[in-house]
């Protein structure tokens, strides 16, 4: 078991003929992901890495039975690609693209209301279920199959955490990058719920950062509902107020959204937070030992 995606998931790549998409399509196929189709308007009939390309997403879905899409479409057209995926009634759409105008996402979220499609991202590294299915950008070799779920607002920080865990012999169930934008699809709580219900996940690592209050809300939710241990990290302790730290959503505004505030809220809800990004793995291992589930999580 795992969450969101597994070895049987059929994936369509939107924007497959772009250079980034081509590179990562190859990487995903090598990882074992079932990439069944690609979409680029006007390039229907071509092939990328042996994958058939279609002009429209509905055509691709009809021909291949894909249920999940991943979007590498450039920012000015990416919101439209999400709408197309929702219209095609896919189960899940993972949007990698960065710099989508925020008001475009406001419309997308409105359009998604009442529809079955779930969205991860935008501006995210994707989802990997270790040794089964990798969708997005995450480097392949860092993952190791196991029982720790990882959720993060940052791509590279996810890699760092996963790498630390794998190096210490702690495998992962799924790693989910929810993205660094202020308006996005699934949030911490949505993914925490999925991990809480997944019998193969024994513990969760949650990586947050400055800006907004999603971590505080997640901490409250964890305190009330989560039956598995959660360990956290918050990036941006040193970030000056009012400055956008790379991610569109990473900004301390009006004195709100600071790292200290988030860490306090998490601690108050019983969540241990790693002091530095170098000790994310160690902190989780310490908690696994305290809870008596280290051996169950350690892969030899």
């Amino acid at each position: 078991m795992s969450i969101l995606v597994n070895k049987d998931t059929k994936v369509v790549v939107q924007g497959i003929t772009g250079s980034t998409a081509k590179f990562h399509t190859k990487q995903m196929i090598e990882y074992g992901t079932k990439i069944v189709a690609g979409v680029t308007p006007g390039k229907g009939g071509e092939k990328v890495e042996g994958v058939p390309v279609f002009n429209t997403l509905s055509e691709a879905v009809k021909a291949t039975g894909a249920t999940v899409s991943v979007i590498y479409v450039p920012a000015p057209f990416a919101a439209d690609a999400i709408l197309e995926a929702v219209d095609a009634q896919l189960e899940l759409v993972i949007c990698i693209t960065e710099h989508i105008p925020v008001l475009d996402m406001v419309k997308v979220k409105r359009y998604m209301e009442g529809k079955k499609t779930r969205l991860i991202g935008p501006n995210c590294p994707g989802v990997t279920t270790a040794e089964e299915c990798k969708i997005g950008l995450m480097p392949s070799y860092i993952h190791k199959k196991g029982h720790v779920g990882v959720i993060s607002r940052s791509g590279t920080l996810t890699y760092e955490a996963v790498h630390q865990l794998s190096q210490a012999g702690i495998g992962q169930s799924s790693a989910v990058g929810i993205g660094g934008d202020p308006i996005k699809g699934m949030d911490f709580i949505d993914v925490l719920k999925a991990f809480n219900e997944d019998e193969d996940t024994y513990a969760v690592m949650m990586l947050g950062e400055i800006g907004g209050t999603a971590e505080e809300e997640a901490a409250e939710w964890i305190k009330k509902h989560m039956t598995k241990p959660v360990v956290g990290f918050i990036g941006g302790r040193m970030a000056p107020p009012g400055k956008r730290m790379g991610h569109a959503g990473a900004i301390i505004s009006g004195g709100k959204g600071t790292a200290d505030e988030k860490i306090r809220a998490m601690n108050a809800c019983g969540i241990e937070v790693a002091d530095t990004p170098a000790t994310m793995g160690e902190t989780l291992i310490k908690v696994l030992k305290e809870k008596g589930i280290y051996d169950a999580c350690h892969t030899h």
Partner: protein
Amino acid sequence: MNIHEYQGKEILRKYGVAVPNGKAAFSVEEAVAVAQELATKVCVVKAQIHAGGRGKAGGVKVAKNIDEVRQYASEILGKTLVTHQTGPQGKVVKRLLIEEGCDIKKEYYVGLVIDRATSRVVLMASEEGGMEIETVAANTPEKIFKEVIDPVVGLAGYQARRIAFNINIPPELVGQAVKFMMGLYRVFIEKDCSIAEINPLVATGDGKVMALDAKLNFDDSALSRHPDVAEYRDTDEEDANELEAAKYGLNYVTLDGDIACMVNGAGLAMATVDIIKHNGGEPANFLDVGGSSTVETVKGALDIILGDKKVKGIFVNIFGGINKCDVIAQGIVSAAQQVGIHIPLVVRLEGTNVEQGKEILEKSGIDIVVADSLSSGAKKIVALVG
């Protein structure tokens, strides 16, 4: 992107949103000419900088005649204003707004923001005008009224009306206030704003509702579809290194320390700044080289870092996903060969194409301290800089 108050008012005026008559002036003579053209009893001379708190810092003066306009303009132009938003170094005033004075009866707050929790644009208003909205939210939250706007229908008339009555706009002025808010919402949507804050909105003695101040911020990701807004950029108001970095598509924020870092991904870049500090070092910058680095952008990043005289060491921390380690390595080698790096350089590479990246660095013969983890990299650079 931020713009000046006078630029914001120019945009508002085009959308029929009421603002006082006025014009920008870049010299004392221009200020006098604008005042003469306005020909009002009272003129306001307002410093134009990208920061709030100008009034308290002496950047806003009311002039009763042309001589006073001349006097205040010459006092404020060139003056360094220090406000709670400028930092201790302050900001030099290079532009003024000369505006007709108005007879203020009451001040309100009206703002549009993007709300993360609802994924919608939210209209916020309060009768506590002139105060920072954060202060009102902390002390008297019951005085803030909000309307969540459905993007399909836009700001509905009844919502604007409800806000106007809730903040106690005099009934005879509610119509004007509604028109004002509807216009402001159009600006917000059509120009891709991230914040549109009118503080204060005023009701005047002669029965008008207008924006006394205007703070408009724009979504950087949407600027390419608004060349007219992009033209308002005032590079004097921005950090030189941050501007240079933006040319290469890099995210750069200047900090006060002496250890520069170059990282891929915003989250890891923030975490790298944090861990340098945790190990007793002082970070000189936040730098995210972004997701599509080329040899040129990496070299550009190193040029900016090396051009910063306070930098005594560099920590490169790359965990390649969409970025490839070999491309980053090539950029480092190319920068080192062309400009020379004469300060300690610690490099940690991991992720996509890591083996090729390490090989390029080894073969280059450049003096690089290799680190095999985030923790050891941070410790090494802090030790080397001392």
